């Protein structure tokens, strides 16, 4: 038997008597609790020390390939057993031998056997030089395969059916990494292993193609596959890239880190880094695959000025001169408050900061708002009233520590796929989970409780939950006593509620609500998440305050695994608000209408800053009709397609003398503009995005901006200088320095110190971030209980007799909002159109069959949508998306909005339906 001992001068044996040890090749090393032999060896000798094939950083130990085998003895000279190190716990004081002759022969033989059934076409294989089988074969010293050619699977056909995913199972080594990625990471359960012995093979669904299966194209399997058996059309695992740049995804508030491979200033592919704190090697089809919009022929490549009703190309100088002259003239004639701006939550913090600075310091008005208005403005306002800070109290990693999740008005598996996958994993494991949603979302199918309420009745339902928590005596009395105020009056009002009436209003069985309330209140740690199904209602802000009440009454604030966590919609909607893109609060949420703060801002910017009330987005349209507003500047905001009540928005824009739009594509709004400025996409610029858990992360320029375009930040700097305000050239470092001096919770943020995983604000001057808010006290001191009674929205109150159905809006995984980007990628091959979800009962009543066109009419207008008959929605309720401009669903949405924050009520539209002849049917836009 081989008795060689491994001696390595760099590793000194740990002799601490307190810690347990085990021997690796004769030398003692410290052992951690619940550690496998593999992780034990890797911790001391690095990741490459023991070869593996079926092991992956983001998957549970599996023990399929046996390449990681080591010898283990319980005494120094005891008999040795061969064990797969990846799933064998390390026993203290045991003796582990990692590279004896026996082990080396075993490993070599395993790999040799694998290679007898593997095509040896490495030189032409897409993963050449990045193939784990190749690496392991070289590592164990294979020069030739001793076995004769026998039966094999080299004739297996490739699957090229899908818009992104590909498979070539002749290269499969049956390690099951793809199956486990599909199960453990995404939770889609599409892949499995079928057959036995030599016939064992990977299947998709019921042995279908990728295109026919339920695959959601997240790419986790492709990234997990150690060979090219599963890959994608971009050959993401290929090593031909000149460089790889780490940046942050632009598609949603999760803020996945991406590693972008570049060849000759062209993007080749995107992978998700395993060390990313946000996404741990995972991302969705938007982040991973939907990037080809960036050099699409439709990209705007030159400034355009509309003369005599037609766009004419112009130079940047001409465009800037035109805008500066017009702005100056309008400002002189009508005053600075006749100009307004809407910034974009898709742009960086720096760009949003500069835009609000441009409006406040250069134009001289508080008329600056952002698209947070139409999504989470009620969250910001409601949480500020309850806690003092309008941002997520906890981090996504807290899902590891929580005992119960409550998801209200959010569909994270479609809209926030990576966080959605984590929530789904939580629910799939049978842990207590509550979903409050009018639709039976994917998460609702796995949840312990699905409270399928009528749209617009969130307040009534949450009041019911609060009622039961109090009547069951489940309040956290100590927390209420020490950390909150206003409880007694609140309790009295809750106890006065008529539960039977609320049951009728919400349409949810009160016993079910009671059980859910008890589950939430009695969990040691319960965490709530909410989305636009909470905010986009006439009672949006009140709903947020009731969610805060639920957290406070149960003491679920200020530690790991609890809290109130809005799932922020856009990648930087948190940041846009942080940077001051709202009329009433400047950079850092400081009160723009307070004289002292105004003085401070004026000193900081070096010019007088306005103190007069500014316009919120819906007020801007009103002001346009009233003739008070004359010009608007839109940074990457397609209000014509995405704001509610399209006709109103369009006629408001048409009333203005000057509409300036910064965009990457000719959107519906661009068509109404006087000047269009071609902007650079997120892949072509640097800056920071702040995700939904307050994490400020670095966006790094991957490729040079396509010719003719400029980063939005540079455009802002240019126009500021052109209008006489000296602002240095755009660079995230310099802008962040300026921001850190005015925004208190950015005090310690420095571009060079953000690192790969960013920092969560508040960032103290010493650079330390914050994972959990309100641990000792609330930002506002004591948390405040607010009672809000249910009030029916005017939309149904006024129109229910003529328009008896309620239409609500949702998102689909494949597309992002107005779809300007995703419709210009292969995503459009996966999901080609918007559909109307309609219950079979309603469909039957109107003789509507699957795929029929349905004419949906609201008090504002009508649209034709294709029907999808499903029990996902209850009778009387319908749901649709607005990803495709052909549909323009906002022709029917209303101008009702949240009473407090003016967030539009997209989620409740009174409507009537009939079978249509489909005369408005249009072909979807393709790539």
């Amino acid at each position: 038997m081989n008795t060689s001992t491994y001696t390595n001068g760099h590793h000194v044996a740990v002799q601490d008597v307190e810690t347990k040890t085990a021997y690796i090749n004769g030398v003692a090393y410290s052992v951690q609790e619940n550690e496998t032999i593999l992780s034990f060896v890797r911790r001391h000798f690095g990741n490459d020390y023991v070869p593996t094939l079926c092991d992956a950083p983001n998957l549970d130990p599996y023990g399929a390939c046996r390449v990681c085998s080591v010898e283990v003895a319980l005494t120094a000279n005891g008999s040795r057993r061969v064990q797969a190190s990846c799933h064998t716990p390390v026993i203290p004081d045991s003796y582990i031998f990692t590279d004896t002759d026996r082990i080396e022969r075993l490993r070599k033989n395993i790999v040799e056997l694998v290679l007898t059934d593997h095509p040896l076409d490495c030189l032409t294989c897409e993963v050449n030089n990045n193939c784990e089988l190749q690496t392991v074969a070289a590592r164990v010293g294979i020069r030739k395969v001793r076995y004769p050619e026998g039966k094999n699977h080299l004739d297996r056909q490739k699957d090229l059916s899908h818009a992104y995913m590909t498979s070539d199972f002749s290269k499969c080594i049956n390690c099951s990494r793809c199956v486990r990625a599909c199960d453990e990471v995404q939770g889609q359960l599409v892949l499995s292993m079928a057959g036995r012995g030599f016939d064992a093979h990977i299947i998709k669904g019921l042995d279908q193609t990728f295109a026919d299966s339920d695959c959601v194209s997240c790419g986790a399997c492709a990234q997990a596959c150690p060979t090219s058996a599963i890959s994608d059309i971009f050959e993401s695992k290929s090593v031909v890239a000149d460089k790889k740049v780490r940046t942050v995804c632009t598609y949603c508030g999760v803020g996945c880190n991406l590693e972008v491979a570049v060849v000759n200033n062209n993007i080749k592919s995107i992978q998700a880094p395993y060390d990313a704190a946000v996404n741990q090697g995972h991302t969705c089809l938007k982040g991973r695959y939907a990037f080809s919009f960036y050099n699409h022929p439709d990209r705007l490549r030159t400034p355009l000025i509309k003369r005599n009703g037609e766009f004419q190309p112009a130079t940047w100088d001409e465009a800037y001169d035109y805008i500066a002259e017009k702005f100056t003239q309008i400002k002189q004639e009508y005053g600075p408050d006749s100009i307004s701006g809407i910034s974009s939550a898709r742009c960086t913090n720096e760009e949003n900061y500069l835009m609000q600075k441009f409006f406040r310091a250069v134009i001289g008005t508080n008329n600056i708002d952002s698209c947070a208005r139409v999504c989470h403005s009620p969250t910001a306002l409601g949480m500020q009233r309850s806690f003092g800070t309008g941002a997520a109290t906890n981090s996504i990693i807290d899902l590891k520590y929580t005992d119960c999740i409550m998801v209200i008005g959010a569909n994270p598996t479609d809209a926030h796929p990576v966080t959605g996958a984590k929530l789904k994993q939580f629910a799939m494991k049978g842990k207590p989970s509550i979903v409050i949603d009018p639709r039976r979302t994917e998460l609702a199918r796995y949840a312990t409780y699905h409270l399928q309420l009528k749209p617009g009745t969130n307040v009534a339902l949450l009041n019911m939950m609060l009622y039961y928590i109090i009547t069951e005596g489940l309040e956290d009395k100590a927390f209420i006593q020490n950390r909150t105020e206003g409880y007694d009056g609140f309790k009295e009002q809750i106890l006065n509620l008529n539960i039977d009436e609320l049951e009728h209003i919400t349409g949810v069985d009160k016993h079910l609500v009671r059980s859910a309330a008890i589950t939430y209140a009695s969990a040691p740690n319960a965490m709530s998440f909410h989305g636009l199904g909470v905010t986009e209602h006439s009672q949006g802000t009140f709903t947020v305050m009731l969610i805060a009440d639920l957290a406070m009454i149960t003491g679920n604030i200020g530690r790991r695994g609890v809290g109130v966590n809005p799932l922020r919609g856009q990648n930087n909607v948190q940041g846009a608000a942080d940077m001051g893109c709202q009329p009433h609060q400047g950079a850092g949420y400081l009160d723009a209408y307070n004289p002292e703060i105004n003085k401070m801002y004026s000193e900081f910017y070096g010019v007088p800053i306005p103190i007069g009330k500014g316009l919120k987005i819906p007020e801007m349209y009103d002001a346009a009709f009233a003739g008070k507003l004359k010009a608007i500047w839109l940074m990457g905001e397609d209000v014509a397609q995405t704001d509610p009540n399209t006709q109103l928005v369009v006629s408001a824009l048409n009333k203005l003398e000057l509409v300036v739009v910064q965009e990457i594509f000719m959107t519906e709004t661009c068509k109404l503009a006087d000047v269009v400025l071609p902007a650079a996409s997120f892949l072509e610029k640097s800056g920071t995005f702040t995700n939904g858990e307050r994490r400020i992360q670095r966006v790094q320029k991957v490729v040079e901006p396509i010719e003719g375009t400029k980063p939005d930040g540079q455009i802002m700097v240019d126009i500021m200088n052109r209008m006489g305000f000296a602002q240095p050239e755009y660079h995230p470092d310099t802008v962040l320095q300026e921001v850190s001096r005015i925004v208190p919770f950015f005090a310690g943020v420095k571009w060079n110190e953000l690192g790969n995983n960013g920092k969560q604000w508040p960032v103290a001057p010493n650079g330390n971030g914050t994972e959990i808010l309100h641990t000792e006290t609330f930002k506002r001191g004591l948390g405040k209980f607010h009672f809000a009674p249910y009030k029916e929205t005017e939309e149904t109150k006024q129109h229910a007799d003529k328009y008896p159905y309620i239409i609500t809006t949702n998102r689909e995984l494949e597309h992002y909002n107005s779809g300007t980007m995703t419709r210009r990628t292969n995503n459009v091959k996966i999901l080609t159109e918007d559909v109307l979800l309609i219950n079979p009962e309603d469909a039957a009543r109107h003789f509507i069959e699957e795929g029929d066109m349905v004419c949906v009419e609201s008090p504002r207008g009508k649209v034709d949508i294709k029907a999808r008959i499903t029990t996902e929605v209850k009778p009387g309720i319908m749901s649709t998306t607005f990803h495709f401009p052909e549909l323009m669903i906002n022709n029917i949405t209303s101008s009702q909005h949240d009473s407090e924050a003016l967030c539009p009520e997209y989620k409740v539209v009174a409507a009537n339906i009939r079978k249509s002849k489909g005369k408005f049917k249009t072909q979807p836009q393709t790539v």
Partner: protein
Amino acid sequence: MENTSTIAFTADELKEVERLQSLYPEHKAAIMPVLWMAQKKWGWLSEDVMKYVADLFTLPYAHVLGVATFYTMYFKKPMGKHHIQVCTNISCMLRGGDSIYEHLCNKYGIRHNETTTDGKLSIEEVECMGACSGAPMIAINEDFYENVSLDQVEKLLQSL
């Protein structure tokens, strides 16, 4: 064989499914006996039957297909009314199992996992069924016949 659109267990069968599920810490462990029930009822596991069973358990289709294809006793295509399994593993081979298998194949003109055109009979060459003491053995559906000679096989076939 029933129409695909009517694939469903009866109320009594569903009770049995529940009983089987209650025997295990996790419901999904009952997938094997339930697939067996389904095979007995519908004769084989068609795609629709597997989907039905998967939905009963809220299990992914791929998982059910994985289980069904792993075990050879689940039929993935229609088999004969009388499914004859002939063991040709060591004990039976030494005692003439091969000649029984060849005899049957020649007689009916079908081979391993094939069915006669009238759907009455199918043949499968199986690995050890654990009845070595009675080699050579054959099984017809779920009944074992041990120490069989060619004559006895013939008699058995006539009695079917």
